[in-house]
């Protein structure tokens, strides 16, 4: 394949080279954060972090560790670029998102550095697709300053426990109110829609809840339109960790197991919508 030969020789010219036997290990995780057109990619020797933001209020990060890749070389301290995620995902799944059993799409990804396009070489059954995606000026991403020492409440539960709740959220409600408390109702999701309010309570000792560490009652509201996209990650994940800090910021960490049994993480941060008046809580 004449296309691949020169590229192998010039390996040192690339600031990022990553190879993957199964492209779905990457594309699945990226799909989980695909709620906006553009994403910022940061690559270090530990792996790649892909960040998507919306409305300066919500941020999603997908972490793909270096170990997921069969080959992962980063020449510089860190490599940063912005890319059209929609196009990237279309390219990654060009051979189809549900491949015929027994066939894998292999990927080789190269980036020459600032101003260069991201090159993708995909191969399935001897057919090669070459994609050259133009990269863009990286944008400053939000720093939510979400520090584990400031975490007040933390619940880890099986994703299935949240999946149905999230897919059936009353979208006529502007906010999703999350109550986390060491006392009853422990963990409650509430919506206030046109057809009335709904409350969904999870008992503390439910089988779905793996860990319950709530120290203080917190009632926070989050824009439902900002949280809804996290359903994509929820659907793919096996476990989710829900944390809130002293400012009411929400962190949702999803653990996603890929086809080879490796673990990747997707994280959503969201800031609270408003202070809840005392009388309501």
């Amino acid at each position, binding site marked *: 394949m004449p296309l691949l030969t020169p590229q192998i020789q010039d390996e040192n010219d690339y600031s990022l080279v990553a190879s993957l036997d199964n492209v779905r290990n990457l594309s699945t995780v990226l799909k989980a954060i695909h709620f906006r057109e553009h994403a910022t990619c940061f690559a270090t020797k530990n792996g790649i972090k892909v960040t998507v933001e919306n409305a300066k209020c919500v941020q999603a990060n997908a972490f793909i560790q270096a170990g997921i890749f069969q080959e992962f070389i980063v020449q510089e301290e860190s490599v940063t670029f912005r890319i059209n995620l929609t196009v990237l995902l279309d390219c990654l799944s*060009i051979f189809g998102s549900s491949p*015929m059993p027994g066939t894998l799409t292999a990927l080789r990804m190269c980036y020459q550095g600032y101003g260069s396009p991201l090159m993708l070489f995909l191969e399935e059954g*001897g057919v090669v*697709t*070459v*994609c*050259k995606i*133009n990269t863009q000026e990286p944008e400053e991403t939000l720093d939510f300053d979400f520090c584990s020492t400031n975490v007040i409440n933390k619940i880890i539960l099986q994703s299935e426990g949240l999946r149905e709740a999230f897919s059936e959220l009353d979208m006529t409600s502007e906010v999703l109110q999350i109550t986390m408390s060491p006392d009853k109702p422990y963990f409650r999701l509430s919506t206030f829609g046109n057809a009335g309010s709904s409350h969904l309570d999870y008992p503390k000792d439910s089988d779905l809840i793996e860990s319950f560490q709530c120290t203080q009652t917190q009632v926070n509201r989050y824009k439902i339109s900002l949280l809804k996209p996290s359903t994509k990650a929820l659907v793919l994940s096996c476990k989710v960790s829900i944390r809130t800090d002293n400012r009411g910021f929400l962190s949702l960490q999803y653990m996603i197991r890929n086809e080879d049994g490796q673990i990747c993480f997707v994280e959503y941060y969201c800031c609270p919508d408003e202070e809840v008046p005392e009388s309501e809580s």
Partner: protein
Amino acid sequence: MKFRAKIVDAACLNHFTRVSNMVAKLAKACTLRISPEKLNFIVSDKVANGGVSMWCELDQENFFSEFQMEGVSAENNEIYLELTAENLSRALKTAQNARALKVKLTNKHFPCLTVSLELISASSSSRIVTHDIPIKIIPRRLWKDFQEPAIPDADVSIYLPVLKTMKSIVEKMKNISNHLIIEANLSGELNLKIETELVCVTTHFKDLGNPPAGEFCAVCSFTFPTCFRGTVAEISARTPGGLWLPMSHARGESRQPAEAAGRAGLLGLRAVPALRFPGTLVALLCPCLPAPHPGWHHEAEEVSSFLLRSQVWCSQ
């Protein structure tokens, strides 16, 4: 003028339904030509206006267990009628579980194609659904507009890769770009390519093989709207000036052949379905341009439905 036909075989019925669905997706109105040997669905939008043309041929004996027809006259033993393709496709919606299908030409205040479906029911009593599809009989003097097109030679012919792969690739490319560039040569290489400001994507196929029909010409390259959704059994094209595409050879071939020709001009898409129905053929013609052209989008929809259908059809 008389026409009466019956299908009893489930596979034939299914196949006939697919054909009519495909036609419905392609065009609002279509022409049905009935002759003692064949049934033809014809769409002949003016190619000059950027429209898509289609010629679909079904061997009557492969589909119908009973087939009686009497044309306009003994020497012109044919019937040409125009109908809304959607109506036929809708009438056949119930055909999935039908035991038999009857089609006949009737006159109920106005000329109709009457489609009756005998449905399976749990009880012994049979249920029949009848649709009357209004039609227009095409007078003898206009028949010349609906003749089987002449066959120009292709410059490059190539067999297409696995349809499922190609379909997926074209679908993704369609998301990104309005136009697809197809390149093919006589060494069995085919490239599908899109080029936009954001991204350039090229898929290289090799070792596809060329049907013996191709004779000369180095590489040809032309632009084709990516709005097409499915894929093709066969593509062929020719240089400007001609109107139709080759469709006589490769009938009943087990492999899906493809032909592509011309630096610019016309792209032909040909679906050769399963061996079960030899002689069945669908050919579609759409113009293609040497460079992207905004006027393309219209007809691309039609192409897309054709491809979508023919894929389903061919993979039987």
